[in-house]
Each structure stands twice: as C-alpha cells, then as structure tokens.
C-alpha cells in the first residue's frame, strides 16, 4: 500500500512538472487517458446561490455554470493532481435570495463540510456578509457581484498576507467595462458625440454611472446631462426619458439592470429620445421580440448573449448549456452569467493542477491570481485586485437583425 502511494506521488510530481509547463486543461485530458491513476477524494465545490425568491434569475445560471464545469471535468476523467485522480463534486445551497440564509449556507459549507472552494452568491449584500466567513477560513470564493469592486484592494489580496487573498471577482470590473462599451458604441453607432446615461440606483449602478460618465469624457464625446439614476423595478420611465430627450443626445447609454434595460429601451424609442442606443444586459433576442425592426441599437450582454456564437468557444458553451436550459429555459434570464462561473470553476480546477494541491488554498489562490486562462470568455486574467478581466458579447441590432462580436478590454 505504502509503496503504491509513493509511486503515485512520483507520477504526480511528473504530472505536476508537465502541468506547470503546459495548460492545465491539456493535462486534465492527458491524465484522463492514463488508466492506472488511482482515484482520490472528490474535490468538493460549494455553491451558494438563489434557487428561490426574487434573485433566482441570477442564482440559477450561477449553479448551472459550476455544474457544467464539474461535469465536463468528470467526463474527462476527473482532475488529476500529483497522479491522483479527483472527481469534482458540486455541493449546492439555496440562499432563498436572503442574507441570513447565505450566511448559514456559508457556515454549512465552510465549517460543517470543510469545503475549501465556494462559488457565489451572485448579489451584493449576500456576498458582503459571506466574505468574512470564507476568507477567515482561507476558503477560495468566486463571485461576479459588483460589490466586490469596493471590497478588493491591492493590499488585502496581497499573497500570503492579504486578508482577502482568497476572494476573486469574475466580472470585468469598472471602469474597463465601461471604457470598452463606449469604444464599441463609437465603432458601431457612427461615433455619437452627444451622449447621456440612465442607470439603476443599486450597488452595480453606483459604479457604472460614474465610470460611464468618465469613459464618455475620455472618448472625447460630450456628456449632455449628468447620469439619471432610477429606482430598480420602476415600470414607467417616460418622465426620466423625457428629461433626457430635452438634452438632445445622439446616444443614450442604458445601463443595468437587465430586467429594466429592455423596458427602458422600448419606452425611450417610443419617445424618440436619441438617435441611437446602447444597453447592457438585455438579451438581443428579447429586444427584437419586444421591438420589431429595431435599429441603431448596440447591446452588450453580461457576459454572453443567449445562443450567440461570436467565437467557437462561445458556440460550444451554448451547446453545452442547452442541455441544462432544456427543461428550464424558464430560468434563462441573464443566462449568459453562467459563463463567468463556468470559466471561473474551470480556472480554479486548472489552478489546482498547476499548484499540485487540492487543499492548500494559499498556493491555489496564488496560482489563480497570476495564471491567465483561455476559456469561453477569451483569455481571462486577474488584475492586481483579483478582478477578472474578460470580454463579453456585443450585438448590433439593425433592421431587426442582430450581428454579434465578442470583444475584450
């Protein structure tokens, strides 16, 4: 028995050597072909997401993304680390769209099940109150919640000392995202010089608003009036939009939330607020369904537009995801979000292989922070504040047709 393990250790170190040279994915598949590798404890990845309550639209894709990554890894024979094959097991917890249950779920995963890797939750307060629990336990946590922007700093993610060095933000941070969107609307909408911004009054909107304004100025366009913030879930935007129309913008940037954007867009067009529109988060398919022969609208999705095929990787992603959406397309709202968590999880597993450990989260976090990964969302790399920089889909809607391009900052 003992000698067997030593042998395994030897193979493992070799695998590790290869791993550190080549891309983890390759190793994963390579090891799958090695039949003799012994199987070790499964790698448990905890998921905290909203499977009931108002936030289920964000929670479901999160869970789906992680499951997809895990299933893929297992189909490839599991993740081989130091010559030991580990299957990936997803442990899911519903936070009922509520803070209290998020905290309890974190306790359950971290303390009770000794889980070292957590994906989620996807939204502001829920993440904020979970972070302390995961970080004290040195548990690696991935989320795309915008609130992380304020929680991650150079100092607190510093290797081996930062008290949030195990925390990673999967969404491309402001202002990079905003700068890119402005660049793209310049490219596709005939460089509109007079621009206006409408954005929701929530934790995401707080950053976006300011950064979009800056990005507009940086791109030498003019901001015709200060950003208009609306209460999330407003149904009737006509009074705000009329105010904006008064400033005669060429382009209206409609930002966040996905559920509101499309509504705003439609009302803006009825009021004829601007010549062209940019919106973030709305699904092109839905826009076309709502507004037949829509024109001069650029849509960016967070991060992928439903069933878009801008790149082979993205097409493959949707093909893979179709199986999950099959029964419950009902939950496809902002389904593209699944890509963040799909890539994030695969990135994590990859980092484990490179670090050659399944439990030393310090090493794994360190590797993740500095190892780029080419996934669905292009080449993903973390900045010095553990914020992923990846691209997203842009679709130009003209004459009721969508033509999409995947762009990265």
């Amino acid at each position: 028995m003992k000698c067997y393990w030593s042998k395994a250790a030897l193979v493992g170190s070799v695998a590790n050597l290869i791993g550190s040279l080549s891309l983890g994915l390759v190793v994963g598949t390579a090891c799958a072909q090695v039949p003799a590798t012994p199987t070790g404890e499964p790698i448990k990845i905890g998921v905290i997401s909203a499977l009931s309550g108002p936030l289920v639209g964000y929670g479901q894709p999160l869970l789906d993304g992680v499951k997809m990554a895990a299933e893929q890894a297992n189909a490839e024979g599991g993740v081989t680390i130091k010559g030991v094959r580990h299957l990936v097991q997803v442990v899911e917890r519903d936070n009922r769209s509520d803070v209290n249950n998020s905290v309890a779920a974190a306790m359950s995963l971290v303390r009770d099940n000794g889980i070292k890797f957590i994906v989620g939750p996807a939204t502001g307060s829920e993440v904020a109150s979970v972070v302390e629990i995961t970080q004290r336990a040195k548990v690696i946590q991935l989320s795309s919640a915008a609130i992380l922007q304020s929680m991650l700093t150079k100092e607190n993610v510093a290797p081996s000392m930062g008290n949030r060095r195990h925390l990673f933000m999967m969404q491309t941070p402001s202002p990079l995202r905003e700068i890119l969107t402005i660049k793209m609307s310049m490219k596709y909408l005939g460089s509109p010089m007079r621009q206006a911004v409408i954005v929701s009054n929530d934790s995401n909107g707080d950053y976006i608003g300011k950064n979009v304004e800056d990005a507009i100025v940086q791109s030498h366009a003019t901001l015709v009036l200060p950003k208009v913030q609306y209460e999330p879930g407003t149904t009737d935007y006509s009074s705000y939009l009329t105010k904006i129309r008064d400033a005669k913008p060429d382009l209206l940037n409609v930002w966040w939330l996905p559920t509101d954007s499309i509504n705003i867009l439609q009302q803006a067009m009825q009021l004829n607020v601007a010549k062209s529109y940019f919106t973030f988060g709305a699904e092109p398919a839905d826009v076309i369904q709502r507004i037949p022969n829509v024109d001069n609208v650029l849509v960016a999705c967070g991060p992928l537009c439903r069933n878009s095929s801008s790149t082979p990787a993205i097409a493959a992603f949707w093909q893979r995801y179709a199986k999950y959406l099959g029964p419950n397309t009902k939950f496809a709202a902002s389904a593209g979000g699944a890509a963040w968590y799909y890539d994030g999880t695969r990135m994590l597993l990859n980092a484990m292989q490179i670090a050659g450990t399944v439990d030393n989260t310090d090493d794994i976090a360190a590797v993740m922070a500095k190892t780029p990964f080419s996934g669905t969302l292009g080449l993903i790399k973390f900045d010095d504040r553990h914020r992923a920089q990846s691209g997203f889909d842009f679709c130009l809607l003209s004459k009721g047709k969508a033509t999409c391009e995947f762009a990265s900052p």
Partner: protein
Amino acid sequence: METLLQQVVNGLSIASVFGLLAVGITLVFGLTGIVNFAHGEFLVQGGLVATSAIALGLPFPIACLVAFIVEGAIGWCVERAVFRPLAAQPVLGFIASLGLIIAMQHIALKIWGSNQIAIDAPLKQVLAIGDVRISAMRIAVTVITIIVMTVLLVLLSRSRWGRALRAIAIDRETAAAMGVPVQAYVSATFVIGSALAGLGGALLLSLFPMSPFSGGVYTINGFAVAIVGGLGSVSGALIAAVILGMVEAIASGYVSPVWSSAYAFGAMIIVLLLRPSGLKGGGIA
C-alpha cells in the same frame, strides 16, 4: 414647453396605470375591510395567464377576458377559503395575504419561470403631435381604465349592489339587520376586485414586461393611490391617480428620480394626517 406638455402626457399615462392598480384595492380594502397585500400578485398572475392565453393563439382582447375570468375565479376561491373565515380580524387577513404572496409568487415561478415575460403590444403605433409622443397602446389602456372606472361608478351609485355596499361600508351590523346579505355582497366585491386585478395585469403586460416578483411594486402604488383617494371611493382613486401620476412625472422629471417612489408614500402619510378618510373618504363613489 413641449417638454412640459410631454411630461403632462406622461403623468396622465402613469395615472391610468395607477388607477388600474387602485380601483381593485379601493373596492376590496375600502368596502370589505380586507387588507389584501396579495392584490399585486393577482395582477401579475393575470398578466401571466394572459401570456399563456396569447401563446395558445388567442387574440389580446380575449386574453384580457381570460385573465379577468381566471383571476375572478381564483379570487372567489381565496375569499371563500381564506378571507371569509378571517373577516372578523382584518389584521389576520393581512397576515394571511402575506402567506398568499409567498405561495402565489413561487407557484408563478414554477409555471412561468423567473424570466421576464412580455408580449408584443397589439397596438405598436406611436402618435406624435410635434415633439409630444405617446404610444397608441397607452392611450388604449387609459381609455379602458376610464371605461372600467365609469362603469364601476355607475354601478356603485345606481345599482342595488352599490347601495348595499354603501350601507355595508357605513355600518355592517345595521346593513345586516336591514336584511342586506352582507356576506354575499362582500364576496362578490372581492371577486370583482380580483377580476379587475387580472384585467389590469393583462393590460399592464401590453405596456411593461413582468416577472413573478413584479407584484410588490404594483401593490404598494395601488395602496398609496387608494388611500390618498379615500378607501372605497372610486372617484377618489381616479383623482388621486391623476395627482400622484402628475407628481411622479413632474417631480422625477424636474427634481430627483431616485426619490420618485418616496413621493407616493409621503403623499399617503400627509393625506392620512390631514384627512384620515382620504380625499373623498367616508362615502362611496
């Protein structure tokens, strides 16, 4: 100038939606004393039912009718099973409605999913007079709202039903003593209130997308309008809807949008202080 005109038009179209929300609440809350916070859920459910009807290939007007009938039926069941037994204690009725909200939201979630659901509006034209623009669909909704309210006003002021309700609202016991079948009238009112919510949902869906969790906002606005107008007073609700609609349009157009939802609450509190029975409180119609 044209901006102001546009804002007035906006205010009126907001008002028509408010009126649609408030009319059911003012009937049910005002005349039966049932504090039904789940009213917005009936509304949303009505909208979702309408989408399914349209998905089955029915034309929009029929879909509205379906929503009207289905929600009326559900309202009947709910009144029978939940609110009638609790008629004596309105507070318990309120708590029960909280239970209803949770159940109805998640039933909708199971059936229709968390996706925003939208239909393409039966009327797509946008009318423009100079720079003042309004979509035909909004005008249609406004007109229907006005028709519904007028019909109710007439019913309340002329019909036996209306007279009975007025009697009940003023003094239940006496009404009962005078041989008014109070229970029957109360249930009838609740059913009509729910049916109107269903219709309202279907109409709103032609203007705005909906999800199973959209109900809360509608309930809140509806209550604000109903209370400012004076519970039980349809005409009051009409006036309040116009006032609050204008306030919201002008204030969020010229002051600060982020506080827009606060205006309704502020108005509600002030009115209740100055005139606890609302603008046209006390009597009915």
